[in-house]
């Protein structure tokens, strides 16, 4: 039982870290630049497809990953240049609609290019297998690699936003673009790069996941909602908040699903318990979000404005 608990804890953390990887890019775009980007999930999907396609060409996942990331970046840059830059002065609702349209287009575009069937990629040889974690307990190496990548991105991003001038300019530009420009910074180029970076992070997350979950159309949609949940629970614009919230959501979801029924069974009859469990499980994170927002309307770590 303790072994299972530890294992599920690790699984929850890993799910949380994955959510954070996707949410990280969105924190830049939504939290810092204040653009609601519903196409972010689709960019995650594009990353997965790119990695799958390049792996197919190169015959090696790591090479595929290395090729996919810059292309995801380029893709983000083009998207910003074509569409997103016209949205900075628009209302949140206009942003929602335009990026919703983009999301539809990307999902459909992927289907036209690669078809509806899932595409998968083999685990890289070096990262397959598992290592001992605790006693007899073992954990897959690749999932530990995902954990590591997520932690690295979290630290790097936090440092970038809070400790560099680039981060300051970004936060400044989010609230007043014209003023940043009037003080001598090319804010358009800065936003272009940041959006590109956000897209790259989303693509990186998708690429990292493709050996575990296969690339398929619409795969970004659920992740998208979850990442918005994460960002809002954490406090919009807060890297630390997003990280904590991602882990929280990952743990609550994973542990709730595996231990919730056991808990319920001790409270009520087995039939009733499994029925209730099935009803509650998919709602868990929404209940979590509603509860957190009801108590802390601006999230766990609100950024003061």
């Amino acid at each position: 039982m303790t072994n299972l608990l530890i294992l599920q804890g690790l699984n929850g953390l890993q799910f949380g870290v994955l959510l954070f990887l996707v949410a990280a890019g969105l924190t830049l775009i939504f939290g810092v630049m204040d653009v609601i980007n519903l196409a972010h999930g689709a960019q995650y999907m594009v990353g997965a497809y790119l990695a799958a396609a390049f792996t197919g060409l190169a015959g090696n996942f790591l090479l595929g990953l290395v090729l996919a990331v810059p292309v995801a970046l380029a893709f983000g840059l083009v998207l910003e240049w074509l569409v997103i830059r016209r949205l900075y002065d628009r209302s949140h609702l206009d942003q929602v609609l335009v990026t919703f349209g983009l999301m539809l287009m990307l999902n459909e575009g992927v289907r036209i290019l690669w078809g509806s069937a899932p595409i998968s990629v083999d685990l890289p040889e070096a990262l397959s297998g598992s290592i001992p974690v605790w006693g007899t307990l073992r954990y897959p190496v690749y999932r530990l690699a995902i954990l590591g990548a997520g932690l690295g991105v979290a630290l790097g991003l936090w440092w970038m936003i809070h400790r560099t001038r680039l981060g300051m300019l970004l936060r400044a530009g989010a609230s007043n673009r014209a003023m940043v420009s009037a003080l001598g910074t090319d804010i358009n180029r800065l936003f272009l790069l940041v959006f590109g970076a956000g897209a790259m992070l989303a693509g990186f997350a998708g690429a990292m996941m493709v050996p575990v979950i296969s690339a398929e159309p619409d795969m970004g949609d659920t992740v998208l909602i979850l990442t918005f949940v994460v960002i809002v629970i954490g406090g919009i614009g807060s890297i630390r908040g997003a990280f904590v919230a991602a882990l929280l959501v990952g743990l609550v979801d994973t542990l709730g699903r595996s231990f919730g029924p056991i808990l319920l069974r001790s409270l009520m009859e087995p039939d009733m318990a499994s029925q209730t469990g099935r009803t509650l499980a998919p709602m868990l994170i929404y209940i979590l979000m509603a509860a957190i927002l009801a108590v802390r309307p601006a999230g766990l770590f609100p950024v003061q404005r």
Partner: protein
Amino acid sequence: EGVKVGVMMTLSGSAAVLGEQGRDGFLLALEEMGGKLGGLESEVIVVDDELKPDVAVNRARELVESHKVDVVVGAMYSNVQMAITGPLTEAGVFVLSPNPGPSALAGAGCNPNFFAVSYQNDQPDEVVGAYVSGKAARTFLIAPNYQAGKDHLTGFKRTYTGEVADELYVPLDQMDYSAELAQIAAAAPDAVYAFMPGGLGVNFVRQYRQAGLETIPFYSTFTVDEVTLPAQKKDAVGFHSGGDWAPDLDTERNRAFVAAFEAKYDRVPASYAAHAYDAAYLLDSAIRAVGGNLADKDALRAALKAADFDSVRGEFSFGANHFPLQDFYVTRVAERADGKFQTQIVEKVLEKPVDAYAAECPMK
């Protein structure tokens, strides 16, 4: 005056793979027949139900009211089937299902104008349940948390005589199953039974392999089939499934079908394509039998019921409730010489079973 056929499949969204198989199977048959059905010129209207029942009902009504179709071949998913069958049959249209065979339409709610060219939904699971009974004493069950998931596991449990180690329901949109796999590992069952259709199956099977659980025998329905195999590849080899058909089913008709399908679409057909292909020939036979007189619905119904066509599945006939009487097999995934993957028949498990609901159907 020709015959108008509506083909309603899920053709958009991630669930479209199944619908594309169904559509392609039907169109292949039609092409083989030179665009004619039972000697009549045919007009085929392909519509997408988007896997949304309300959208599907509208498209169905449009097929009736605008296009005045005689027959609809569709749908791919049970919920859509349940939504469209009523409105269509009330309007006097015949509905041929290439995949779903919901229990509600097999029992008391059976419908004179509805024909399942596939199977009753529970049957593939009953087949696997019966097969696993002799092989594993404790089996772990997993399915997505929706109505069909519950139904399929119920079907399995109906014939499975061993002990159920545990039963897990996962969200439909979940992609990472590490937590479930950990639970399976902890339970250490003798076998796993999964109903994880489409993309769910792709991820589940690959992660099952990655987690090193392949020592636990894997049985399933709709989880490893020709739709998912191109993505699962080697990871699914040796995994079991159950059904009424496999590409290697040894009938002449089937060999021809598989060869023609692969030649035309460059992929291995799945059962969805095979059923839709059969539906086209069934329709052809019935129209021919009534001499092209589509107005005589009773005659057409009788002709459909007679199922006087050469099925890819070999012997094929309809029971009183318009559900098939046919053989069922357990299959196993194998890699072919050309590097493609397909399911192959391991053994015939049930011979022309009558589905569990047929007795409640008032039709004789």
